[in-house]
């Protein structure tokens, strides 16, 4: 019960936003989310249970738990939400419908908080469902745009697959354990070989849909149709993290079934695909989105391979520089009014924006001392024993550095006067929230040394973040620097020479493609194949929809209210029923 107090300020804020004058809505939203953040300090840890439904041998409880990883996720969500809302002050200022925006974003935060503290499958499901609905509203925020509608539909269709799976899991767990608490579920599953595999499969599908793993990753880049603060929130701390979080807390089930190697390979495919896509993509926000998919893959990869602490630290660190990079993307798109990195320019005009963004990029590329460096060194060091995986991870790291700096260089071209004015007169709230999140990327580095003992003191013992040593630091830095140099040669040099040939080559992406062929020729073939598979899967889902619509048309045509038709249906119905019963009962 006590944990739910965290939700109260948000709910009050939603109610207040609904009634106050339009100019005050934003302040109410900010105060609400800040109050929740403050309350987090006073909340005592422990788990609480509310009985929802008691049916004798079966019972459904809403259980919450505040400890360890739940607390970490709560902290991330509560910390980033005020930043996002503060950023929206400037961003949404020029747009109408602020009231609807703030209501939806507060509801989204509340759903995510409930998710973060959930300790039973039913709590998980309730939060999951509310997350789906609110994210549908937010991604489709500009519903007048057909593309926004379509993206929202795509996101919710994918996530619904997960909903079905969780409902099925609830039914299974309830029928074997009688209750849906995580603890009793783990205990009950331990004695039921076979059933635990079914539960694991269903849960992993749900998790893959939410955290955008292959082959369900397509919805995430499309979800960029929402307003930028929404993307920032969605990608850094809420929606996509929900999947990883569920994976971590349900890890006992997956370990018991022995599923981890399968998950490892899926995550691996996700990482490779997303990296290649990030290199190819031109849309400012979508590059960062693909980068998120890649990072989610890396987290899954690490956690499934047993490097839980490394994965969770990545989870923690990624939130801060990702939110910063989305803030920057929003600022760039706002100032240049363009979306393709071929056309955007002038990042260097506003020094504060430029330096904050640089912090984010350096973190993404893995430069010491930003949190991204510690995140990637944690994962890299965990695989130091396996030279093959380590080599591939290093190449991935280098590509990450390349696309990070490509993004940076291409965004810093010379700008037109109009763009410069827009950069210099950028709303203060946008600039300051970027500065704050840039500072957070530095502070979050400290988490590398403390998070392990804080979270895993007694839960997942034995698998800590690998200790730092000089070789690792050198290798990791070298990888990032090589990426920087390559990006510099391809993108910066090409621009300075202004050679038509080079820019032609660059724009067509031939060099990028060549690079793949040299560095990862084999991988690229696999990636293409996987991409085709994913494409055909989404086509298949589409065709199901089309089939339903065709049947719907048929029904509409058939039921025009003709009495003759009715008589025929009646007669046929009775006859079929008789025949059927005759066959079944064998009389």
């Amino acid at each position: 019960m006590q944990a739910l107090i965290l939700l109260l300020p948000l709910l009050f804020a939603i109610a207040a936003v609904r009634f106050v004058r339009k100019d005050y809505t934003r302040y109410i939203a900010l105060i609400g989310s800040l109050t929740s953040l403050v309350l987090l300090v006073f909340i005592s840890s422990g788990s609480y249970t509310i009985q929802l439904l008691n049916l004798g041998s079966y019972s459904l409880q809403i259980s919450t738990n505040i400890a360890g990883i739940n607390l970490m996720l709560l902290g991330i969500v509560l910390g980033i939400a005020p930043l996002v809302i503060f950023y929206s002050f400037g961003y949404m200022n020029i747009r109408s419908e602020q009231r609807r925006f703030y209501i939806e974003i507060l509801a989204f935060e509340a759903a995510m908080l409930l998710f973060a503290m959930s300790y039973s499958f039913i709590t998980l499901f309730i939060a999951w469902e509310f997350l789906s609905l609110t994210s549908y509203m937010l991604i489709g925020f500009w519903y007048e745009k057909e593309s926004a509608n379509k993206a929202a539909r795509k996101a919710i269709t994918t996530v619904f697959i997960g909903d079905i799976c969780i409902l099925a899991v609830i039914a299974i767990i309830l029928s074997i354990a009688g209750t849906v608490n995580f603890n009793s579920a783990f205990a009950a599953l331990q004695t039921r070989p076979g059933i635990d595999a079914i539960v694991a499969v269903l849960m992993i599908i749900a998790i893959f849909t939410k955290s955008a793993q292959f082959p369900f990753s397509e919805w995430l880049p499309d979800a960029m149709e929402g307003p930028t603060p929404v993307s920032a929130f969605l990608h850094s701390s809420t929606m996509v993290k929900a999947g990883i979080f569920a994976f971590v807390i349900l890890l006992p089930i997956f370990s018991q079934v022995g599923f981890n190697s399968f998950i490892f390979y899926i995550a691996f495919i996700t990482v490779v695909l997303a990296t290649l896509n990030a290199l190819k993509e031109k849309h400012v926000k979508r590059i960062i989105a693909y980068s998120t998919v890649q990072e989610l893959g890396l987290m899954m990869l690490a956690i499934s391979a047993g490097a839980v602490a490394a994965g969770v630290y990545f989870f923690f660190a990624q939130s801060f520089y990702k939110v910063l990079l989305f803030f920057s993307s929003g600022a760039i798109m706002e100032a240049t009014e363009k979306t393709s990195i071929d056309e955007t320019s002038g990042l260097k005009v506003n020094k504060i924006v430029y330096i904050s963004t640089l912090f984010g990029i350096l973190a993404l590329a893995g430069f010491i001392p930003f949190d991204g460096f510690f995140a990637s060194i944690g994962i890299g060091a965990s695989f130091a024993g396996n030279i093959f995986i380590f080599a591939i991870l290093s190449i991935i790291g280098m590509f990450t550095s390349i696309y990070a700096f490509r993004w940076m260089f291409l965004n810093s071209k010379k700008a037109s006067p109009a763009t410069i004015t827009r950069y210099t007169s950028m709303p203060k709230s946008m600039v300051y929230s970027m500065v704050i999140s840039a500072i957070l990327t530095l502070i979050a580095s400290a988490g590398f040394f403390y998070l392990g003992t804080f979270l895993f003191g007694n839960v997942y013992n034995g698998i800590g973040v690998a200790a730092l040593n000089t070789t690792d630091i050198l290798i990791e830095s070298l990888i990032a620097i090589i990426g920087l140099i390559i990006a510099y040669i391809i993108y910066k040099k090409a621009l300075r020479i202004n050679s038509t040939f080079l820019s032609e080559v660059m724009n067509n992406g031939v060099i990028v493609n060549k690079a793949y062929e040299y560095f990862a020729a084999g991988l690229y073939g696999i990636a293409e194949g996987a991409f085709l598979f994913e494409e055909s899967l989404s086509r298949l889902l589409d065709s199901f929809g089309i089939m339903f619509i065709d049947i719907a048309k048929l029904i509409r045509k058939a039921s025009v209210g003709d009495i003759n038709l009715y008589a025929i249906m009646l007669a046929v119905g009775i006859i079929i029923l008789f025949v059927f019963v005759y066959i079944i009962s064998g009389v």
Partner: protein
Amino acid sequence: MISFYIFGILCAGLLFGDLLLAIFSIKRVQLAFNLFILGIIGIIIIYIYYTGSSASILNIISFNPFSEFFALLFTVGVALINLIYYSFADDYRELSLLLTFSLIGMYVVAFSSTIPGIFIGLELMSIPTVFSVLLSKKSLEAATKLFIIAAISIAIFSFAMAINYGGSGAINLIESQYSTILLIAVILFIVSLGFEASIFPFNVLIPDIYEGSPAYITALLGGINKKVGFAALLQILILVFIVYHSAFIVIAILSVFTMFYGNIGALMQKNLKRIMAYSSISQAGYILIGIAVATSYSISGSLFQIFAHTFIFIGILAIMAVLEKRNISTIDGLSGLSEKNQFIAFALVLFMLSLVGLPLTTGFVGKVLIFLGAVSAGLAILAFLGIINSIISLYYYLRMILAIYSKGEKVQMIIVDNYVLSVIIICLAITILFGVFPQLMLGMINNAAAYLLHL
């Protein structure tokens, strides 16, 4: 025993009082009288339930938890319908009188302990309904269709009754022995009640009727009359023919078809009442799953779903009656509703999400119970198909929700009078209250299910 007689006297008093008031008095007094008597009847039923005394009068009327649950449901539902009629119908006096007649029929179905009693009750209920549809001049076609359905249904029912009597020699609702001839009776009972309960393939005319009638009468048709069909179906199938449990697979198949027919049929519709007709067909499919599985969980689930859907449907149709008065009848017309009236927009969205099965609403509890019953009885496939259907249904509900929260071209406030507003608030309160605290209702429902299954 005295309370049973008071109940009977009150019913008679309601009937005659309503008749006199319809002839002589003004509408307002009639409404007050109806609500007052219905309120007392409701209290008496609750009193009878809590004293736990079951009684059988002349072997044809029996008071038991099942009948008390349904009687209470019908009483509250009819009271709400009375309010809606009062606010929308021009000819409230006649409609209200007809509704009272119908209510007596519903009580007869609920309390009857014989099959002919159910027959009489269904007749008593459906004939006044046909007339009330007929009262609105525009819905002649719908009234005709409803009449045809009622006629065919009752013909088949009496045929089934005759076969049953020939086969078992009993007219009471007691468990019958297994014999081949009775299997025919089972099928015919399912078919005849399938009209009232809108089971595929006997529901082809249902969307026409729901669309053709005024919204305030559709609220009665889908909200209450359909539930009477289910009350009869439950009594006959579970109390009498539970011995044919192996043949209930037929009902399972029908339930799957009903769900898919309803949900897929609704996908492409534009007319709001038609969408609600298809949606209520699909809900009937979920309820049927529970009947087909026939364990205590699933029957509880069906009863809870019946309870939930009654109030959700009445709430939605009350809102649609408001919209209909302003000539809004399609999804496109919904656009900008949130700006025109925040409260009814919010209520409509909540009702729809509850129909989908959003947690913390009554719709979720009913579905969980039904699916849990199916899974624990080894019929997980039914639960799976049910969940698939919930997902399909989200598409048309979300279409409506997006329309509600989109910008309309012209903002014209919609003002709702207090009678309808109270109906919407009561339905919303029930949907949320019993969704968050289902335990409040589950006691009664479990007792009713236990009575049906002789537990």
